[in-house]
């Protein structure tokens, strides 16, 4: 038996800058994970449905438009509403330091701002391994 970690990298909101998201997706692939990439301008509903159909362990949200305080918590809320309580959500993008405590309170477990070495994202995933269902 071989349990593979599956990660959804998604871009909610209206900005079309997906370089960061694609970079993270590729780096996580190189780290040995299965990464599902959805492309830009995804609604929270579409992201949540995708996460459930793909049965992912993590959802990574990338946003540069400034709407993270609305859209990130909305994704977490919809996931929980659908009963996907075990999906771990993290975020990245241009996010001011002062917003991070709020996002964490809303269930976004880690926030990676520009310039974060990819190693930190991988460490975050590895450190949550025991929480994943078998």
């Amino acid at each position, binding site marked *: 038996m071989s349990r*593979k970690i599956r990660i959804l990298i998604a871009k909610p909101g209206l900005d079309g800058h997906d370089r960061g998201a694609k970079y993270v997706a590729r780096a996580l692939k190189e780290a040995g994970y299965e990464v*599902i990439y959805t492309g830009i301008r995804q609604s929270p509903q579409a992201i949540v449905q995708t996460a459930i*159909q*793909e049965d992912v362990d993590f959802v990574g949200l990338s946003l540069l438009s400034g709407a993270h305080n609305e859209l990130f918590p909305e994704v977490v809320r919809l996931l929980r509403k659908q009963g996907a309580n075990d999906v771990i959500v993290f975020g990245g993008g241009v996010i001011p330091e002062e917003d991070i405590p709020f996002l964490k309170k809303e269930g976004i477990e880690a926030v990676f701002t520009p310039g974060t070495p990819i190693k930190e994202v991988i460490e975050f995933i590895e450190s949550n391994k025991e929480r994943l269902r078998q």
Partner: protein
Amino acid sequence: MTKRLIEGIIRGDVRSIARAISRIENDTQDKETLIDALYEHTGHALVVGITGPPGSGKSSLLDRIIERERKQGKKVAVLAIDPSSPFTGGAILGDRLRMQKHATDQGVFIRSMASRGHLGGVSGATADAVKVLDAAGFDLIMIETIGVGQTEIEVMNLADVVLLVLVPGLGDEIQALKAGVMEIGDIFVVNKSDKEEANRLKAEIEYVLHLKMSQEQSETNPIFMTSAIQNTGIDQLVQGMHDYVQKMEADGRLAQRRRKRLTLELRTIFTAKVEAHVHNFLDTDHKLDIWIDQILQKKSAPYQLVNRKVAQVLKELKS
């Protein structure tokens, strides 16, 4: 746990379906119980394979086909396979990007699968994932293979009918494809048909099919010209696909194909089980190095050694 999962799948519950596919992919212990319990609920879906070289537009075409089938009220599932890295085991699964507008449609289920080292253009879990979707009540299940070259033809063993998508600009490559994937297509699709060379490609396909026909005396495989981006030729393709399946059903080819699929499946399961038992009995994991040393030291030879070990297993069976 497994019982609840099975009930969920038969009810069409998305989370149950998704979770079951993961269990199959991860080869969990309850996989066999799961599949066997679902088996009596299968056999209703039409399984369509869609294959072709990388960049031929398989995902975009699928997106359009889903649109049409949803208008007819059919429930559609897609299994989209992408390659795993042979070095890291990681994968980027991006096929669903082109189908994302169906993400919130409750009548559509899309699942990306990494090949996880399986060769042949699909993943080792694809066949069983199809059963889950079939039992869950999907009318149409589409398997999108990884971008194929010449030998990735396994989809023909999983699908009722195979669409082979080709695009202009491959040039003489169609000649190279002749021996491999060209032979597994039931229906040929010339996508990006707005491109200049499309008609020439169609003529080439006709030529290759003509050669094949004269050898096998079979009826002609239909060829459709489409442009997924411009949304042209799709209605004809979908209609043609259903007509073709109807013909296969009428002349018994569909039943024959499904029987052959089951035959291959049973053989595969047998081989895997027998192999596991044999290696378990012989303790191959621990003994292999000793055997290899014997062969390297020329105290034994490969066939001689294996024959002796197999004889040992057979002798044990008789006693």
